[in-house]
């Protein structure tokens, strides 16, 4: 990799980082507006036009609140907990392919933080690490309710990670690759009628979606942090921006989960007729091959973000529709329904691949 393309890649990483933060910031605003609309209300509309400065006001509020340390708390770990939650949430967006590639002369810029051939494993590893942020925060608070909340959160996350992984194994059996870029490219073959993975894996997608809700601690599985009845949970003792980091990490996680779902099941940056469009731009409109590639790459970025926003909206829509699961219902759903279903899905996929109903993937690129 040349120094120039390395510089470009650094820029892409910075942009991805910034975009993750920006989207998480405005998720807080979107959540409140969507909640309001779903309840026939208006939502925040005072700070700035349409209340768009509301996240800034919230940030100022969180920063100026009292920094509180409970007595007997492990101070270092108490600070480390929310930091870890935030770091792990932000790290996973590094491997998401947000676009194919831009080409300027000889420089090729992949619109992805970093391309690794174990992208999916990496995301899983980082998501599992997120439990530490919660667990350390709950334990370091020196409060039995925080600790109980943290244990609740940890056991939920670990239980649902199993079903999530099993749902993904079915996708891996088809794709034969752990790289998120490969999985995206496989979902669209030039000059061929091709479907996104959701068509081949509807059951797997539903399992993954349910588990994503549980992994990001969103309703109906938000027992780790239920505000109303279970004494908040692991962040009971947290105040000011440390509290803000936990809340923020949740939104970053929602963004990452949405991105992973759109990449794995909804074709990522692919959109229908992209290769035909590139061909048409090149031949009929007289653009150079690079320019037409750049145009569809940018359209691809727009596509993937449209898909991500649709998923984020779905997360919020569900939150303001469904009540919370009880803890025993949550565990029953995870262990006795989702995991057997996921195993059944693996068998089904295996059968369909062996009988040739799901065609073999071509490595066309």
């Amino acid at each position, binding site marked *: 990799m040349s120094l120039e393309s390395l510089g470009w890649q650094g820029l892409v990483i910075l942009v991805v980082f910034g975009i993750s933060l920006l989207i998480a910031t405005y998720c807080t605003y979107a959540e409140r507006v969507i909640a309001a609309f*779903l309840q026939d209300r208006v939502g925040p*509309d005072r700070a700035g036009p349409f209340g768009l400065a509301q996240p800034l006001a919230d940030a100022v509020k969180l920063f100026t609140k009292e920094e509180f340390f409970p007595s007997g708390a492990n101070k270092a770990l108490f600070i480390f907990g929310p930091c870890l939650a935030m770091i792990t949430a932000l790290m996973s967006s590094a491997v998401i392919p947000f676009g194919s590639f831009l080409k300027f002369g000889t420089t090729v810029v992949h619109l992805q933080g970093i391309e690794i051939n174990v992208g999916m494993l990496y995301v899983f590893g980082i998501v599992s690490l997120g439990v530490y942020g919660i667990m350390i925060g709950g334990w370091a608070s020196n409060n039995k309710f925080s600790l109980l909340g943290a244990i609740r959160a940890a056991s939920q996350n670990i239980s649902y990670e199993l079903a999530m992984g099993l749902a993904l194994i079915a996708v891996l059996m088809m794709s034969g690759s752990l790289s998120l870029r490969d999985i995206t490219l496989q979902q669209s073959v030039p000059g061929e009628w091709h479907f996104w993975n959701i068509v081949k894996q509807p059951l797997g997608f539903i399992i993954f979606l349910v588990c994503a809700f549980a992994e990001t601690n969103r309703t109906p599985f938000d027992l780790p942090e239920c505000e109303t009845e279970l004494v908040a949970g692991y962040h009971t003792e947290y105040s000011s921006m440390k509290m803000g980091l936990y809340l923020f990490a949740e939104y970053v996680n929602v963004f990452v989960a949405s991105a992973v779902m759109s990449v794995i099941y909804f074709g990522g940056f692919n959109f229908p007729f992209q290769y035909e469009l590139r061909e048409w731009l090149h031949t009929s409109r007289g653009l150079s091959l690079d320019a037409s590639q750049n145009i569809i790459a940018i359209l691809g970025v727009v596509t993937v973000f449209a898909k991500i926003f649709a998923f984020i909206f779905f997360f919020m829509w569900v939150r303001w*529709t469904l009540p919370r699961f009880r803890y025993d219902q949550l565990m029953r759903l995870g262990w006795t329904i989702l995991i057997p279903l996921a195993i059944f899905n693996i068998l089904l996929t295996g059968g369909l691949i062996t009988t040739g109903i799901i065609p073999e993937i071509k490595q066309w690129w």
Partner: protein
Amino acid sequence: MESLSNRAKKLEKKPMTLAERAYLPAIFQGLSITMQHFFRAATKKQVTIRYPEETRPFSPVFRGLHVLKRDEQGRERCTACGLCAVACPAEAITMVAGERKKGEQNLYREEKYAVSYEINMLRCIFCGLCEEACPKAAIYLQADKMAPPRYERDEFIYGKDRLVEPVSPDARSKRGIQLTPEQAEKLRSQLQSA
């Protein structure tokens, strides 16, 4: 026991059907309901009243912010008898009485008047007993104004500067209801003839 309304329904706890146990049909039903509300709120009907730009219509018998009335010739009606302060269950009213001097007949109706008159709006419970107690029909609780929120406690102690009705007939109201232009005109002509 016999139920009074005969509307009691006997419920049996049946085991859930497969569709109920699968959650998904019920979830989609719920999602469609909230989506209908989303579009309704996005297009027209929001229940929110954007106070202070919009206000709810007041009831005509609403008891809001106090006003110290003037008579037809623009003189203060209050004679500082103290009956309102005695009647006040919250002890929100204090006043200092003074004697009217020569040449002040156009300012105060009675020989005795209130030099200062203060109502603490944080103590006031807006019961309207002062209004009932007043023999001079001087104090009223307006039907269209509320004591607005403030930042400091002492800003809630309303003195004569904020309580006494303005002299201009256009700004006057009758029991708190704003006069129509015709009524204001009539009052103005009465004042000029007097």
